């Protein structure tokens, strides 16, 4: 065994990808958006059997409104928490920088589709976040900010009506309702599909529970990050590795 081989870091089986704080933020987001979606849908579809069923399940129209607003305040607190996290912590700021949209993401997404269409043989190489993950993050982030802004106008409608014309209130009502549907489709449909139901992930990926990802998955889906973490490593099966690897 050469000295060069001995100096290589062992490659672990799993890598910690998300910290406890990031997992906690994800859990709060998951719970608040679920509650907001269910209570919002109840009002959005109040004239249908679905709306009536949801309103009854939520304890009537009075309770529905209260639950919706409590969840909305929780979402606002989470937004503030996330903002402070990505601006004032080194780790959070690094995550935000890695989430920046680049022209290469558009090309990467095009190559991903080309791969599934059989036009290219190799899965494109991505860094810490894939274009699809960035799309979900910014979609959920911008969507949540829009929901908070329009929701506040609707919540304090009397005050809002004193400063904005009726058409702004119309647009706000529509945007809040349909933006909610878009978020619902994006997060509860597409996000759940990509994370848990897509090929290789079914029936469930455990990263949202423990923040970890297998090194094999990291190598396949985040090849550039894998190289940054393990650059010249070729020794598989070690117990620990760099940068939070476990």
């Amino acid at each position, binding site marked *: 065994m050469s000295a060069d081989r001995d100096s290589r870091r062992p490659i672990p089986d799993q890598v910690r990808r998300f910290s406890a704080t990031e997992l906690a933020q994800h859990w709060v987001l998951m719970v608040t958006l679920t509650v907001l979606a269910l209570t919002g849908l109840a009002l959005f579809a109040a004239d249908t059997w679905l709306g009536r069923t949801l309103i009854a399940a939520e304890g009537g129209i009075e309770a529905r*409104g209260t639950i919706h607003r409590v969840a909305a305040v929780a979402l606002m607190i989470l937004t503030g928490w996330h903002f402070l996290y990505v601006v004032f912590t080194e780790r959070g700021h690094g995550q935000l920088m890695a989430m920046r949209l680049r022209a290469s993401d558009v090309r990467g997404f095009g190559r991903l589709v080309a791969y*599934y269409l059989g036009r290219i043989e190799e899965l494109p190489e991505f860094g810490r976040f894939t274009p699809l993950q960035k799309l979900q993050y910014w979609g959920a982030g911008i969507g949540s900010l829009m929901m908070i802004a329009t929701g506040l106008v609707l*919540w304090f409608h009397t005050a809002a009506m004193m400063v904005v014309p009726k058409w702004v209130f119309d647009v706000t009502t*529509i945007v809040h309702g349909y933006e909610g549907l878009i978020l619902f*489709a994006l997060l509860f*449909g*597409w996000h759940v*599909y990509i994370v848990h139901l897509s090929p290789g992930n079914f029936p469930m990926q455990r990263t949202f529970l423990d923040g970890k990802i297998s090194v094999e998955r990291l190598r396949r889906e985040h090849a550039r990050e894998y190289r940054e973490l393990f650059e010249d490593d070729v020794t598989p099966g070690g117990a620990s590795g760099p940068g939070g690897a476990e």
Partner: protein
Amino acid sequence: MYSTLASAIVGFDRSLQELPPAPSALRTAVRVALGLLILALVAYIVIEQLGSLRRRRSSRER
């Protein structure tokens, strides 16, 4: 205080349903945009599923 808040909420929920509806053109535009978005999401899922199925088949045949 709770009853004041609750009645304001109930009043708002009712007033929201009693407001004159927004222009139908605006509703239609938003619905079309939402439909296109959902179509794009579904198209991605179909492409990924078919591509994955094709690759699994070809790797079995090798």
